[in-house]
């Protein structure tokens, strides 16, 4: 079967870093409180840049990294699209000069990047396209209740992207296996209640368009499902945890990632993390963490990676891949 390889990677952040100290002036919190519970020291919040804007910047960096100016497909994972209609991906494809390629959005909240990766891998492996630009892009600052310290301190804006290409069978640096899952009975754990057809068809429904999350329940379920999904893809790849060089989990919370490593009986040193600098960037978090792994010199060609994510829905997903030899620039800081 056709193999699928990562050919390029890029990222972008809006150039407005918000520190914990600045948040402490806006709400009842402190640097110590935020760091102790989340591991986050700062995040980037947009002023004038939308999800499409950061997606374009990250996509351009990924295309540059892949030394390509064309792909056959654009899949964009986001919770915060530019508009309820149409999808953000076609505008991103047009702004990148990609011509009349297939382009659509994927909505799986913080698992979105893994879902988008699975979709693009399926398109390539099935022979529908030969290459794809997969983007995770978010501007959570636009949906946060900035008086709610349980969520506002956690999330940041940004985008990460990879270029996937078809390769000959047996190519060593390949995207190996992907596992996806969901449990809609837990949809209340992470949600934006209003703004959709549910609210418009039920007069009594919650009309809030702010993001809400049941933190403790999410913590527990995230650790449980990411561990279970990780073990599934590791078994499919016939890898042991010991054989994995790096675990790149969704950058939800440092303590969630620590508990995940413990549950997998993996050395915590294998966790690649950047949430201390950028916070939880939802669908963008895994490609931004991968980029951090490269630019910090830890992630090298031939390394075995486990990616895993959990998000609203609830949804979860994991992937195994062998990292290729790639050159990449640090995330583009774009004016906002």
């Amino acid at each position: 079967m056709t193999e699928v390889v990562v050919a390029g990677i890029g990222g972008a952040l809006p150039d407005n870093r918000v520190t914990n100290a600045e948040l402490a002036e806006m709400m009842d919190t402190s640097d110590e409180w935020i760091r102790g519970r989340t591991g986050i020291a700062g995040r980037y919040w947009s002023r004038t840049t939308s999800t499409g804007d950061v997606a374009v910047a990250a996509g351009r960096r990924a295309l540059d990294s892949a030394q390509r100016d064309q792909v056959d497909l654009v899949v964009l994972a986001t919770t915060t699209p530019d508009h309820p209609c149409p999808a953000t991906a076609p505008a991103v494809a047009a702004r990148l000069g990609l011509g009349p390629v297939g382009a659509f959005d994927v909505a799986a909240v913080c698992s979105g990047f893994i879902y988008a990766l699975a979709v693009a891998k399926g398109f390539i492996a099935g022979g529908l396209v030969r290459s794809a630009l997969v983007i995770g892009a978010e501007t959570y600052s636009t949906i946060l209740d900035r008086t709610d310290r349980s969520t506002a301190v956690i999330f940041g804006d940004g985008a990460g992207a990879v270029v996937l290409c078809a390769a000959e069978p047996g190519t060593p640096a390949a995207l190996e296996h992907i596992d996806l899952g969901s449990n809609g009975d837990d949809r209340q754990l992470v949600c934006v209640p209003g703004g959709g057809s549910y609210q418009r068809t039920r007069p009594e429904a919650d009309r809030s368009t702010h993001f809400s999350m049941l933190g403790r329940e999410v913590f527990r379920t995230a650790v449980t499902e990411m561990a279970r999904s990780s073990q599934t893809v590791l078994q499919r790849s016939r890898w042991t945890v010991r054989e994995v060089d790096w675990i790149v989990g969704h950058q939800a919370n440092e303590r969630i990632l620590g508990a995940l490593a413990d549950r997998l009986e993996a050395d915590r040193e294998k966790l690649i993390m950047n949430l201390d600098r950028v916070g939880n960037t939802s669908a963008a978090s895994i490609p931004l963490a991968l980029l951090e792994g490269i630019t910090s010199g830890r992630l090298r060609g031939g390394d075995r990676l486990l990616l895993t994510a959990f998000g609203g829905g609830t949804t979860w997903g994991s992937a195994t891949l062998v990292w290729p030899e790639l050159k990449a620039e640090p995330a583009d800081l774009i004016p906002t």
Partner: protein
Amino acid sequence: MNAQAQQAVVRYLVDAITTRLENVDLPADPITEDSRFEDLGLDSINLVELALLVERELHVVVTDAQLADWGTVGAAGEHIAGSVTDSSTLPQVAHRGGGS
């Protein structure tokens, strides 16, 4: 045997709270089976982490809400010990909890 199992689980919980949970502001007094979770300087995530440790290592599914409802370390030990189906976890627990 039940009392022994409970003691082993209590020692496990005390060991976990004092040495394995992060961001805990422990009180000066030693933790005993009469200690209440709410008095142990735990943050909002610590009981979830403790429940996950119990689930992984003792193979007993508990939630942070149950731990909070049970109130004390001793009561939690009693409930958890009563649900242990794999008794082979307990000697190991007793050894770990002994701090040797």
